[in-house]
């Protein structure tokens, strides 16, 4: 069966989700592999969310927030950045390729960038193949 | 061939079982002692920062965590290429003496004493610590519990966590001693010395004065002629914390003496498919199988072997007891397995005296607790005597001190082959054609492994511990022929 990557994207309400919405309303075409989860701020994204996504079968996880300096809640995106970098170190130790977790800043007007991000990330995941962690951790 | 299975072994290190195979005549053909457990410390320590290892390896054993913590701490010092300052070394050894006191007390009174104080043929319901207390009195029982508790309080004071101490840091220790804390330890240590003397008196009065017991110790099927291993100081006296490893042969002549970094030239481990535990042996002789004697590669590392391998004890009262033991048992070296219990009590007294000595040392309240650290050479071996044998930890790290490899030879592991042989000899001695394999006989077989002080000496207390054993005697086709239950 052909591999169809499952990608979970956590998008902050004020910037990146709106940007993703813009891609949609502008009728931009991009790969359909992403399941979007809207959070109020990228600072809301806990490591638990990312890890649960992988555990439940995500092949790749995207984390998007406002550009540095533009966070609706001032500093939330910096927290997100720090958590993301620490998460990358952690998942590498657990045998999950760090390329499967990506962070990118997407503003409300960056519909095109969002579409491009999804396409390139899906391609990356396609090349990596399915993430086997879900089977590995089964009891 | 008929089989007698003893599963699980109780009052022994972790999980263990014994398979006794009887031939058609009813004599013991062979006996296998199997260790069914493994956790894999030597693998999962890889990738950890080396300074975390003293705390992680302490979890190898909950009764002797201090032993692993010390061997590990010493190995880590060498990984960093440093020596701890004198105060730190003395604090470590002081902790270590308290650790020996707690463990040797627990083992003797709960594991050994029932067989001797109450008697090997006494009813099982009496052959436990409660039976001992009945014989020696509740007051004495409370005294045993109290002394053990006091030793543990010293552990908690010096090590933070009472059981899984955290005192070691690369180059030293994390915590010093104040004057008042030191004075408190001196008081406790004086109590330990009295308690050590009391325990030896008890052994003298109850065991040695009893002809039957003395006979079992000297003439029972419990003797194995093996090479003896133990750590000795510069004067060849017994030391638990530091020194060189000395091995003497079955006649008492020195076979070798090595410092920690040299251990790989002298010790190797053998693997059998029927046990998860490996079998160390003397490399220069080679693995000769499960035989004892001068030409065997098997050695033992126990309180008795420590006393055999050394020229004496470093403290005066223990030295007197050492001399008394050897003159009673006919000179050095002693091969009577059950004499391990006696040797253990001599060590208890030594630990108490040494504890007092260290507590009174002016350096012990010193403020210099840690050596200066620099670039990390990245390899280290640490050896101490654990209560049940010589313990070796060997670490390799990268230049950031992240662990690459770990090799550990544990105290009881040294004795794996010896324990197998002791059990077999006892079984062959007591179970013969026509023997009614009774409860008392089974207990005599168990006494063979108990002398080695299995790693788990928790039986400090109580409990209506009988020694229930279920023996199933089966025909070769597996049909149950006889089932003996000792409740």
């Amino acid at each position, binding site marked *: 069966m052909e591999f169809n990557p499952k990608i979970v994207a956590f998008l902050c309400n004020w910037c990146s989700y709106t940007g993703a919405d813009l891609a949609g309303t502008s009728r931009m075409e991009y790969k359909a592999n992403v399941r979007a989860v809207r959070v109020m701020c990228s600072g809301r994204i806990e490591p*638990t969310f990312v890890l649960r996504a992988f555990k439940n079968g995500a092949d790749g996880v995207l984390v998007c927030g406002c550009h540095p300096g533009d966070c609706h809640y001032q500093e939330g995106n910096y927290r997100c*950045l720090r958590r993301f970098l620490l998460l990358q170190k952690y998942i590498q130790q657990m045998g999950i390729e760090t390329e499967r977790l990506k962070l990118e800043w997407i503003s409300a007007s960056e519909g095109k960038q969002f579409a491009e991000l999804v396409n390139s990330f899906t391609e990356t995941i396609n090349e990596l193949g399915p993430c086997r962690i879900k089977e590995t951790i089964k009891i | 061939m008929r089989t007698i299975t003893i599963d699980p072994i109780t009052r022994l290190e972790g999980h263990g079982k014994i398979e006794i195979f009887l031939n058609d005549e009813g004599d013991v053909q062979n006996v296998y002692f199997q260790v069914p457990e493994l956790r894999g410390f030597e693998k999962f320590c890889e990738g950890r920062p080396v300074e975390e290892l003293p705390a992680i390896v302490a*979890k190898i054993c909950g009764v002797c*965590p201090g032993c692993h913590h010390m061997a590990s701490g010493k190995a880590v010092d060498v990984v960093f290429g440093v020596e701890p300052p004198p105060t730190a070394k003395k604090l470590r050894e002081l902790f270590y003496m308290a650790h020996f006191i707690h463990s040797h007390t627990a083992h003797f009174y709960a594991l050994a004493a029932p067989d001797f104080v109450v008697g090997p043929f006494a009813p099982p319901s009496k052959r436990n610590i409660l039976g001992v207390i009945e014989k020696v009195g509740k007051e004495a029982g409370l005294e045993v519990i109290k002394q053990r508790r006091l030793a543990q309080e010293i552990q908690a004071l010096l090590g933070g966590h009472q059981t899984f101490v955290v005192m070691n840091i690369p180059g030293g220790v*994390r915590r010093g001693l104040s004057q008042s804390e030191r004075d408190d330890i001196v008081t406790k240590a004086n109590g330990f010395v009295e308690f050590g003397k009391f325990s030896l008196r008890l052994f003298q009065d109850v065991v040695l004065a009893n002809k039957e017991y003395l006979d079992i110790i000297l003439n029972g099927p419990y003797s194995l002629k093996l090479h003896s291993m133990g750590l000795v100081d510069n004067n060849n006296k017994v030391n638990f914390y530091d020194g060189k490893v000395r091995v003497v042969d079955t006649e008492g002549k020195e076979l070798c003496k090595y410092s920690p970094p040299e251990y790989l030239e002298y010790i190797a481990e053998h693997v059998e498919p029927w*046990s998860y535990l490996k079998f160390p042996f003397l490399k220069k002789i080679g693995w000769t199988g499960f035989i004892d004697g001068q030409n065997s590669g098997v050695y033992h590392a126990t309180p008795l072997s420590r006393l055999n391998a050394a020229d004496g004890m470093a403290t005066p009262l223990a030295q007197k007891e050492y001399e008394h033991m050897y003159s009673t048992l006919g000179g050095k070296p002693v091969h009577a397995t059950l004499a391990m219990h006696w040797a253990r009590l001599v060590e208890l007294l030594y630990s108490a005296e040494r504890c007092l000595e260290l507590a009174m040392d002016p350096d012990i309240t010193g403020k210099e607790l840690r050596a200066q650290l620099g670039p990390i050479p990245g390899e280290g071996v640490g050896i101490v005597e654990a209560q049940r044998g010589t313990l070796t930890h060997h670490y390799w790290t990268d230049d950031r001190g992240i662990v690459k490899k770990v090799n550990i030879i544990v105290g009881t592991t040294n004795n794996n082959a010896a324990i197998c042989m002791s059990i077999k000899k006892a079984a062959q001695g007591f179970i013969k054609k026509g023997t009614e394999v009774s409860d008392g006989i089974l207990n005599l077989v168990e006494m063979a492994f108990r002398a080695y002080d299995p790693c*788990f000496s928790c039986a400090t207390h109580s409990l209506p511990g009988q020694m229930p054993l279920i023996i199933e005697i089966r025909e070769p086709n597996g049909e149950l022929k006889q089932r003996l239950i000792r409740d």
Partner: protein
Amino acid sequence: MEGSKPKLKLAVYWAAACGGCCVSVLDVHEKLFDVVAAADLVFWPIALDIKYRDVEEMPDNHIDVTLFNGAVRNSENEHMARLLRKKSKILVAYGSCAQLGGIPGLANFSTKEEIFNRIYSESESTINPEGVRPEILVKVAEGNLHLPEFFNDVRSLSQTVDVDYSIPGCPPQTERLLEVFTAIVSGAELPPKGSVIGAETKTQCDECIRKKSENKKIRKFYRPWEIQDDGITCFMEQGVLCMGPATRAGCGYRCIKGNAPCRGCYGPPAGVADPGAKMMSAIASIIDEKEPEDISRVLEDLVDPAGSFYRFSLPSSIIRRKMP
């Protein structure tokens, strides 16, 4: 003076364990006599000579309370977990290994094959040219010998059977055990099934007496030996990783008393499923850098995130083992 109340039937069993939890039970010291007055120990392989066969012959729910310590590492551990579940009214996951997987759980960074290779072949002191490995069935001249099967990964007790309560700690602090024991014996109402008992609900930081300030900001992490600990200030504020913020209180901050940072043996506080993930979140919050290069520089000094954040809880965490 014994009342007419029947004694509590108590069992203590150890699986892939070290004995520390059994020692914690013994460390009741003089109170032992009170314990024995209120309870009959009906199974405790370390201390009593009651065999597996005796447990098998007990009626179901015969045992009132079983304190099960140790992780589930092999087939014997699993078998005993199932057996004791059947025979016990209340099954307690006692200690870190049973509750979370514990230190043996670190083996989930490797596979069975890697572990066996290291121990039985690669070990520098081992001479084994034929590559002998322990086998679950061995035919010797006299007959057959059996060993339990070593699983590829470690599990906690609740990943194996239904568990009524957990008492956390490595080992649980004896005073906490006595509190629980007294509550049970006195007939007090027990908390809802599945609860963690014998511990607090908040984190270690709540108990710990080290000085904390309002503003925690970290610009550099230090290995414990890189600093001179002042013995007074919060470890995290000195730049030393301490698992206190993500660890349940109840142990009496015993490691802190020994001047060592907490490593998380009491498991997650109330309401937290994965303590490592929470710790990552907490650390990210207090790093005082904004640029990716600066943040990465700070994180460089966190040398073993997985092993530090999941020291005791790897098998029960979300990503519960490393992908081989």
